[in-house]
């Protein structure tokens, strides 16, 4: 069970495993090039020092990396810095990626989220935010995060699955993931005991996992 291959059940980059050497089709001016190769395969080319492959990876993932950093950090300038760091890290450490252990997209998003959270926790902004936890501003903060998620969720499936959570699970997961809040901050924001938040985060993720079909065999 532990060794099974984790795959995207759908979504960008893993659709149908097209042949690795098919013709590349790039839609000029489109939002993103049409994926003709899985992102995993592209990242494996990046690992061999293929700069053109990296550019393709950039086109497919930079928006997600930047958007995630922006969501967590709020400040566009810092988000841009973090996105740059993460994308460079992808280039530098691409050889460590092992497709058997999870998708390239998961690898990149995990790195991006952690990097953004590390930045927010160590920054002045975080300290200022800590100081206001419990104050009226935090209430707005919370509303803004939730609202932003609800309005920007383009991925219908993600929205559908988020709606399948209890309100409290959804709030906790949303604040932690999109808001980059620690569970202690989530507890303060939601006025819940710490232990409750920990289990709620896990319960919420389990429900999302099952709804999204994550981890089920191919």
């Amino acid at each position, binding site marked *: 069970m532990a060794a099974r291959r*984790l795959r995207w059940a759908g979504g960008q980059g893993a659709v149908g495993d097209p042949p690795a050497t098919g013709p590349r089709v790039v839609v000029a001016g489109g939002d993103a090039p049409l994926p003709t190769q899985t992102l995993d395969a592209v990242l494996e080319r990046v690992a061999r020092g293929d700069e053109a492959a990296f550019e393709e990876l950039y086109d497919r993932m*930079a928006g997600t990396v*930047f958007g995630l950093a922006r969501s967590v950090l709020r400040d566009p300038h810092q988000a*841009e810095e973090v996105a740059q760091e993460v994308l460079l890290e992808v280039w530098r450490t691409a050889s*460590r990626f092992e497709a058997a252990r999870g998708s390239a997209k998961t690898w990149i998003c*995990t790195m991006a989220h952690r990097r953004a959270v590390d930045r927010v926790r160590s920054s002045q902004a975080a300290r200022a935010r800590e100081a206001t936890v419990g104050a009226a501003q935090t209430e707005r903060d919370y509303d803004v995060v939730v609202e932003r998620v609800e309005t920007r969720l383009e991925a219908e499936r993600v929205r559908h699955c988020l709606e399948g959570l209890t309100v409290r699970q959804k709030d906790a997961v949303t604040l932690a993931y999109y808001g980059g809040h620690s569970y202690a901050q989530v507890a303060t924001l939601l006025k819940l005991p710490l232990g409750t938040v920990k289990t709620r985060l896990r319960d919420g*993720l389990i429900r999302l996992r099952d709804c999204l079909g994550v981890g089920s065999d191919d």
Partner: protein
Amino acid sequence: MTDPHLLTGAYALDALDDVERAGVERHLRDCPECATEVAEFHEVGGWLADGVALPPPPELKARVLAQVRETRQESPAGAAPSSRRVPRGVPRRPLLVAAAAVLLAGTASLGGLAWQSHEAAVDARLQASRIASVMTDPTRTEASAQVAGGGTATVVSAGGSAVFAAHDLKSPGKGKTYQLWVIGAPKDITSAGLLELRDGDTQAWVADVGRGKSLAVSVEPSGGSKQPTTTPVTNIPIA
């Protein structure tokens, strides 16, 4: 600490503090089911990330691509720390640099063997970067000692965390393991996890330690003990 099993969600969402994070990471090495769960949760994270994708600033692409052209990639072994890991102005100490290389190599290659998931590999990278950051900290202190039964141990400490490294250790024996302890006072002993030996070498990153505490190792039954049950084979005060 809360049962690490219940912390997988908060861990995957990067919602833990450093101490708890390190605790969960240690736990994941021994709990393949937990590592798989964390991997699945991270995959959920990838889905959630789709929800907030935004067009990046147009100038970002040129900047990243320019940097890429100037940046050397890690070798596939993942073991070669590039020179940029060592900040300028820090005198290179052969012992430490060599130790850092061994540590990084050890951490990177652990991924292929014992760790069951992609996440564990991410954790290995995190551990490697934490270890590297202690080893290259200009304010670091170090202390070494012999290990009873053979081998040497070194503790390098900086900024409230420490790296424990030992070399040429003998096998602890069948059904036994080396366990690392943080000792604050005679009655204040907490486990810092089990040490995995690779060719007699081991390393660990320990959070929340500094002057006044020491790191000790004892031989314990497989799976570890809550408190040391044998005389430590080494005990190194943090300098």
